[in-house]
Structures are given as C-alpha cells and as structure tokens.
C-alpha cells in the first residue's frame, strides 16, 4: 500500500520556507557573479610581428621584389577587428631609418577563427641584390566583440638581413 509523503514529512515543512526568499535570490545573484567570473576568462590579446622578409609569393604571383611584414593579433575571446600602425625600419650607418609606414590599417577577424586577425598585405618594393637589415614593429588596438578594446604591441626582435633593399638606388 503506498504511503503518502505528507504523512512522513510534516505539512508545515512544505508551506513555510526556512530561508527567506530575498536571501535565496541574493544567494543566486552571488552564485551567478562568482560563476560568470570563473567561466568567462579575462580578455587577453597578443600581437605577433614576424620578421620582415623577402616575399617569394609576390615574386611568383606578381613578379615584383618586395619586403613583406606579416602581423597577427590573437585573443582568447572573439574580436571584431584589430587596428595597427606598423613600420619597417632599416639599419643604415648604425642608425635606424623608417623605410615603410603604411599608416593605420584595420583588419577584421577571420570568419573561420574569430579570435584572430591577420595582416597579410603589408609590403614595400625593394631592389634585389642590395642586402639590408630590417626590423618590423607595430602597435594598436584590438576591438573585442561585444565592446571593449585591448592595446597591443610587438616587434620582430633583432635586425635581420634580407637580400633586397627598400629605397635602394
């Protein structure tokens, strides 16, 4: 024979809350805040400036000699786009000279990887056979999806030689 639940547990327990509803809602809010901070990571972005290099791709496809600068911004959260000001500097008589500065460029994140924006069209014509040492640098802002910006900057490290001179006669 089935036993009724109300016979085992006193009826008052169902009707009278032991914890006030305001406190329950408060606890839920606290739980949400804690969980959302744990689950949603703090947005972080990095910029990677590769060393300026002679582009075989441009030689093969356009028959031009050019030094190319590849830049990638990557975040741990989706981004809308990245804006960077980049430059290529060369070493001349021990002094650094800017030989390429394309101005402020914007690149939206790729549809396949919304956390990444890749700049692959930054290049300057050069004269093959004139060896020069270059360094690339960039700084800018990453605009995150849903708002907020993160400043980023990077350079390609030490000056490295390429067998093609930008601005060489």
């Amino acid at each position, binding site marked *: 024979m089935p036993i009724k639940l109300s016979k085992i547990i006193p009826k008052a327990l169902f009707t009278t809350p032991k914890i006030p509803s305001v406190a329950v809602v408060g606890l839920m809010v606290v739980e949400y805040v804690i969980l959302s901070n744990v689950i949603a990571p703090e947005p972080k972005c990095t910029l990677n400036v590769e060393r300026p290099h002679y582009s075989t791709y*441009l030689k093969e*496809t356009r028959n031009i000699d050019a030094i190319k600068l590849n830049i990638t911004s990557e975040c741990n959260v989706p981004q809308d786009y990245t804006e960077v000001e980049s430059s290529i500097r060369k070493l001349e008589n021990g002094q650094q000279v800017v030989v390429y*500065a*394309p*101005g402020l460029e914007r690149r*939206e994140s790729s*549809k396949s990887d919304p956390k990444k924006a890749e700049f*692959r*069209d930054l290049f300057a014509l050069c004269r093959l056979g004139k060896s020069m040492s270059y360094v690339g640098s960039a700084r800018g802002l990453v605009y995150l999806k849903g708002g907020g910006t993160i400043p980023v900057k990077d350079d390609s490290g030490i000056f490295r030689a390429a067998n093609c001179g930008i601005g060489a006669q």
Partner: protein
Amino acid sequence: MILEYSEQQIVGLVHNRSVSYFEQCLTFGDRLLQEERRALYKYLLESNKDFYKVQAKTLLAEGKVSRTIANGQAIYSVKNSQVTYSAYGLQSEIFSIDVRQIRLSKFRLLNEIRLRKFFAQGDIDIIRNFPLPSRYLREENGFGISVYPFYTLAYYANGKNYLKGIIKKLKTNDKEILTKLRTL
C-alpha cells in the same frame, strides 16, 4: 565606319586582346601596393566621374544604391543624414557592415562631390578585398581597409599633424602609375 563581327570573331577578339593594367589590378587584391591603391582611387575618380554623379543623385533621391566591382558588391545607404556602405563578396562568405561613413551637409552640390570620392574609396576597398579570380590561389582573411580614406588629409597625416599631411600630399606623386592606368 561600322564594323560587323560574327559572334565567333568577337570571342576571338576578346581572347586575343591583351589585358590592361587596370584589369590586372582588379585581380591583385591584397597584392596591390598602397601606391597602386591610391593611384587607382584617383583614376576611378576621374574615369567614373559621370557614373558616380548618377550614383550620388540616385542615393540622395532613393536612400539606397548598390555597385558591383571586381568580385564584390558595395551597398550604400542613407540614414540620419549619414551615408554608410557595407561590402559583400560575390563568391565569398566575407562581408563587412558599415565599413565607412560620411555625414551629409545641407548643400546638394557639396554632397555630390563628397559622395563621388566616397564611392571611389568604396571601390578601392572592394577591389582590395574581393579581387577577380586569377590563376593564383588566394587565402581569405577578414575584411581589411586603410582606416584613413584617400580623400582626407588624415590619410597623408596618418591622423596626426595635418600640416605635415599637407606637405606629404603635395610631395605625393602617382603620375607614373596613373599614366600606366590611363594608357596600358
């Protein structure tokens, strides 16, 4: 003199003629030099003057106009005295909403002049991101633009010292590429 060609002859003519430098530029996309993009902007502004004028009038009258160039399409629209454009690839999933904006003034003639420049800049953005197919495979990245359009002094000043921008603009010489675009 009226020349008459059969359909077969026309096909032959089309295939035999050499591709112009401008037509090549339509296939270069992200392989266009910044100097080429700037010269192309100037070239389109002068060669499409009448077309842009008609486009501007249509946009101001109807509030919307679209334009297809290379392998992409730009859709221009007016909202709250502001013109924006969105870009779409014809054979691509890449698109960008509200790429650039300009504010309209109360003067119709001024608006038409500014819109012509805006259209030329839009064309350059489309050509850069959605080139005509060529035999070289192209990696698809996100939509990219130079933030400062060619028609502003900010482009030459990179958004900073406008006096230096004026000097740089005066020093900028695109004659060589422009000549190639006009003649080859």
